[in-house]
C-alpha cells in the first residue's frame, strides 16, 4: 500500500487586509496565501509593496505594536493570530529584521540568545539547552562569549536568527535578511537558512526587494510576487520562471540568466533557468558551432591618458587599538573616471574614502593624499569640499530641513554663495533628479527613494569635481536604483569624476569604467571591469563573485565565449548570433 504524507499547513491567510492608522490605503489588500510545513517561501516586491506588513501580520506585531485595522483570517501554525497575544505567537513564528546590528540587544552572543527564553521565565537548564541548540543550528558554536560588535555582518544576522530560534518557533519570517550584508555575509546567512529548513524542518518566509534575487531564488520552493499590497503571482519558481509580465508588473528584475533566456525567446519552460549551471547546459545544447571570441580586445582605452585628479602614495592608517585599516595604498584616479571601490566589509573602503575627503588623516608621516591639486590632509574642510565630496549611504545622516528645496540650498547658503547662484544651482539639481514637483514637499514624509535623491542632490549642488558615493542603490528597488546610476553617469558626462562604493557587482559591471578591489587594507587588483572580472580566482581572495552573466560566460569558455562579458546585452549579442536555427 502506498503511503502519502499528509500536508500540514504552516500558514493560511484568507482575505487578509491591513491598513495602518492614518493611512489612506491598505498596506496589504485581500491576501490569500497557503504555506505548507517545510516550505521556503520568497516574498518578492519593491519598497512599499506590502512585504514587511505581511510579515508583521503573521505574529500579531500588526496591529498590536503597529496600530491599524486588520481584517480576514490569519492562521499560523494552527492558531488564529487575532486570538493570541504577541508572546504566544512569537513562540510559533519568529521574525528577523533587516538590520542585524539593531536587533541584538545583549552584550554577548550567548546572552542575546538567552534573552528571549529568560523573558519566558524558563529554568537555567532549559535556557542553556536552548542556547546550545540555537548556537549549533546557526553555526555559532565557539562564539558564545564574543561581543556582538566583533562579529561580521553575516555572523550578526546569524545571531539574530539564533535569538529567534531560541523561542522555538516552527516558522521563521525574515524581512530582507541579506540586504545589508556583504557577499560573504549573504552566503553565510542563506546557507544557515538552508540548513534550518532541510535539517530541522523549519518553515521559512523571506522577503526580497530584488537586489539580491540571484542569491535568494536557488533556496526557494515557493515564490510570491507582490505589488501595492496585493499578490500578483504565486507558485514554485519553476511555475513562475516564464511569467515575464508578472516580474515586470512587480518591478522586479529577474536573475541575469533568466533575463537572457527571456530575450532569447525561449519558449519551452523546461529550458528556462534561474541558475548559471542550468543556463550553461541549455546554451551548450543549442550552440550552432564553437565560437571564437576569446582573446578579442574589448576594452576601450583612452588614446592620451588624462591627468590624475587623485594621487595617493604610501597611505597607511592605524586606528587606536591597533587595527591596521590601510596598508600602504598607492593609487591614481584619473579625470573623468567612474570608479567602483569594492571589497568585503572591513577591507578599508570607507577608511580610504574618509582620507580622500580629509576626515581621516594618514598615520604615517610620509603619506601623500593629493586631490585635484590640493593636499587634503592639510586643507580645511570648506576648501576640500570644493574639490571632492561624499554622499553617505544613509540619507538620514544629513537631512534636517523642512522642505526639499531648503535642504538642497543649505550647502550653497552655508558657503555664502550669492542668492541667484543658490537658486540656479537648486533648480539644476531639481531638474537633474526630476524632483521639481517635490520641491516644497516635507522631508519627513519623503519615501526612501526620494530621500536618497535629495541627499545626493544636497551634496552634488556644491559642484565638487570628484564625488564619492557610498552604496548608492542600497535599499532602493530596481527602478529607483537605475535612476540613481543614470544620474551618476550623467554627472560623469558633465565632467565629474565619480567613485562609488558598492557590494553590487551588476552595478560595477554595467556602470564602472574601473574597479579597485580592496582586501585587508591593500589593493588586491585594479583595472577595467572586464580585466578584473576575468580573474575569478583573484576575486575569490576578496570573497567576491563576478556578476551572474559573467560567470555564465566564464563557464562557457570551452565553447569559445570570452570570459569578460559584463552585461545581459553583450551576452545576448554573442549567443543570438550563434544559436541553432529554430531554437
Amino acid at each position: 500500500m502506498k503511503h502519502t504524507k499528509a500536508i500540514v499547513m504552516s500558514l493560511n491567510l484568507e482575505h487578509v487586509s491591513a491598513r495602518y492608522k492614518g493611512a489612506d490605503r491598505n498596506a496589504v489588500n485581500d491576501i490569500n496565501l497557503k504555506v505548507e510545513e517545510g516550505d521556503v517561501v520568497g516574498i518578492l516586491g519593491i519598497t512599499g509593496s506590502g512585504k514587511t506588513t505581511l510579515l508583521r501580520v503573521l505574529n500579531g506585531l500588526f496591529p498590536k505594536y503597529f496600530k491599524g485595522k486588520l481584517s480576514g483570517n490569519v492562521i499560523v501554525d494552527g492558531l488564529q493570530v487575532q486570538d493570541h497575544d504577541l508572546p504566544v505567537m512569537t513562540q510559533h513564528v519568529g521574525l528577523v529584521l533587516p538590520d542585524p546590528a539593531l536587533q541584538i540587544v545583549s552584550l554577548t552572543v550567548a546572552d542575546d540568545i538567552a534573552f528571549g527564553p529568560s523573558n519566558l521565565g524558563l529554568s537555567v537548564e532549559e535556557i542553556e539547552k536552548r542556547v546550545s541548540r540555537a548556537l549549533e543550528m546557526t553555526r555559532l558554536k565557539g562564539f558564545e562569549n564574543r561581543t556582538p560588535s566583533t562579529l561580521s555582518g553575516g555572523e550578526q544576522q546569524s545571531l539574530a536568527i539564533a535569538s529567534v530560534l531560541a523561542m522555538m518557533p516552527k516558522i521563521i519570517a525574515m524581512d530582507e535578511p541579506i540586504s545589508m550584508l556583504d557577499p560573504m555575509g549573504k552566503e553565510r546567512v542563506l546557507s544557515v537558512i538552508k540548513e534550518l529548513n532541510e535539517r530541522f524542518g523549519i518553515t521559512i518566509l523571506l522577503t526580497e526587494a530584488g537586489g539580491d534575487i540571484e542569491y535568494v531564488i536557488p533556496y526557494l520552493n515557493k515564490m510570491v510576487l507582490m505589488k501595492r499590497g496585493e499578490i500578483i503571482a504565486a507558485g514554485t519558481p519553476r511555475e513562475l520562471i516564464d511569467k515575464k509580465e508578472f516580474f515586470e508588473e512587480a518591478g522586479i528584475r529577474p536573475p541575469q540568466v533568466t533575463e537572457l533566456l527571456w530575450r532569447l525567446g525561449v519558449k519551452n519552460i523546461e529550458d528556462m533557468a534561474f541558475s548559471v549551471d542550468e543556463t550553461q547546459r541549455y546554451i551548450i545544447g543549442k550552440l550552432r558551432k564553437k565560437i571564437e571570441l576569446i582573446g578579442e580586445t574589448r576594452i576601450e582605452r583612452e588614446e592620451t591618458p588624462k591627468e590624475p585628479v587623485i594621487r595617493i602614495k604610501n597611505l597607511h592608517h592605524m586606528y587606536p587599538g591597533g587595527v591596521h585599516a590601510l596598508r600602504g595604498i598607492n593609487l591614481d584616479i584619473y579625470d573623468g573616471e567612474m570608479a567602483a571601490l569594492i571589497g568585503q566589509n572591513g577591507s578599508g573602503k570607507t577608511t580610504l574614502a574618509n582620507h580622500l575627503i580629509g576626515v581621516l588623516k594618514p598615520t604615517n608621516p610620509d603619506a601623500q593624499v593629493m586631490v585635484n591639486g590640493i593636499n587634503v590632509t592639510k586643507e580645511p574642510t570648506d576648501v576640500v569640499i570644493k574639490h571632492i565630496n561624499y554622499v553617505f549611504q544613509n540619507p538620514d545622516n544629513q537631512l534636517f530641513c523642512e522642505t526639499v528645496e531648503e535642504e538642497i540650498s543649505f550647502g550653497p547658503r552655508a558657503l555664502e554663495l550669492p542668492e541667484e547662484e543658490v537658486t540656479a544651482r537648486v533648480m539644476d539639481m531639481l531638474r537633474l533628479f526630476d524632483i521639481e514637483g517635490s520641491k516644497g514637499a516635507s522631508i519627513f514624509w519623503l519615501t526612501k527613494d526620494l530621500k536618497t535623491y535629495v541627499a545626493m542632490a544636497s551634496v552634488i549642488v556644491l559642484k565638487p569635481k570628484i564625488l564619492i558615493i557610498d552604496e548608492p542603490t542600497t535599499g532602493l528597488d530596481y527602478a529607483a536604483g537605475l535612476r540613481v546610476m543614470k544620474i551618476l553617469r550623467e554627472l560623469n558626462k558633465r565632467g565629474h569624476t565619480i567613485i562609488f562604493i558598492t557590494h553590487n557587482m551588476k552595478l560595477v559591471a554595467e556602470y564602472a569604467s574601473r574597479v579597485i578591489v580592496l582586501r585587508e587594507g591593500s589593493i588586491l587588483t585594479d583595472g577595467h571591469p572586464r580585466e578584473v572580472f576575468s580573474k575569478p580566482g583573484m576575486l575569490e581572495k576578496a570573497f567576491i563573485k563576478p556578476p551572474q552573466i559573467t560567470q555564465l560566460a566564464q563557464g562557457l569558455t570551452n565553447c569559445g565565449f570570452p570570459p569578460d562579458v559584463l552585461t545581459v546585452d553583450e551576452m545576448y549579442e554573442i549567443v543570438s548570433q550563434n544559436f541553432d536555427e529554430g531554437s
Partner: protein
Amino acid sequence: MVLFEYEYRDTFLHKMNPLSKLIMITCLSLLATVYWDVRFILPITIVSFLIAWNAKVPISWIKLLVTLWVLSIWIRLSQAIFMAPEFFKVLSPEIVTKTVIEITPEGFPIIGHTALTYGSLYYLAAIISKAPVAWTIGLTVVYTTPLNDILEILRSLRVPPKLVFIVMAAWRFLPVMIRNIENVVKAQRLRGWKVKSRNPSKLVKQVLPFTKPFASQFAAAIDTISISAELRCFGVGKVSSIKRLKYSAYDKILIIILPIITVILWYLALVHYIGLI
C-alpha cells in the same frame, strides 16, 4: 582595545565571582571613605594597587588614573585651605589651626584670612592617599568583569528587569550612537556647516543640522530595539536568570568576612575615632 572595557585575562580577579568583587570594592571604598589617618589609609591604597596589578589592569588605564590624581591635588589643596577646624575629631584645635604658610592676610577682600595649617596638611595627605582607592578598585572591577555578569548580579538582587534592560541596551548601543553622531557631524561639515556665531541663541539654531538627523536616527533605533525586545517577550512576566553564577570557596569567604570586618572597623572609626584625625 577600547578604554574601560572588559578584557578576558587568566587572573584570580577575572575568575572571581562578580558579587564578591562588588562586595570587595564596596568594603574597600567604605573603609577608604571613613579613615582620615594616613597610617590607616595607606595600607588600603597599597592593597588596591596590588589588586589592580594582580588583575593585569593595562598600564594606559593606570597612567590616566595617575594624571587625574595629579590634577585633583590642586583641587584638594584649595579644599584643604578652607577646611573648618570642626572637621578634626582627634587632633587638638591648636595643632590643626597652627599656620604653616600664610596665603592671604587678615581683612583680605572677600575671602579674608587664609593659610595652610597643620590641619590642612593632615587633610591633604589623607585625601591624596585615599583618592586612588575607589578609582583603582573600580577600574579593576570594570577590567575583570563582563557587564553581563554585573547585570546577572542585578537580576539576582531583584533589580527590576526593565531597569536592567535599560542599562544593558544603553551599554550595547552607546558605541552605535557615538558612531551615528560622528557620521552626522561629518555629513554636515561636508555640506559646508561651521560655527558662525558664538551667541547662545544663534548656536541653538546652528546645531539643528546635527540634532534633527540624530534625533530621527535615535528614534528609529529605539523603535527597532523595542520591536526586537517585544518579539522576544520582553516585559511579559517573570524574568529568569540566564545562568547560574558560581561561587568558589574564596568567594564565599570574602562575601562573609569582608562585610563583617568593614562593619567592625566602621564602628571603631565612628564611635571610637580610630583611624580619624
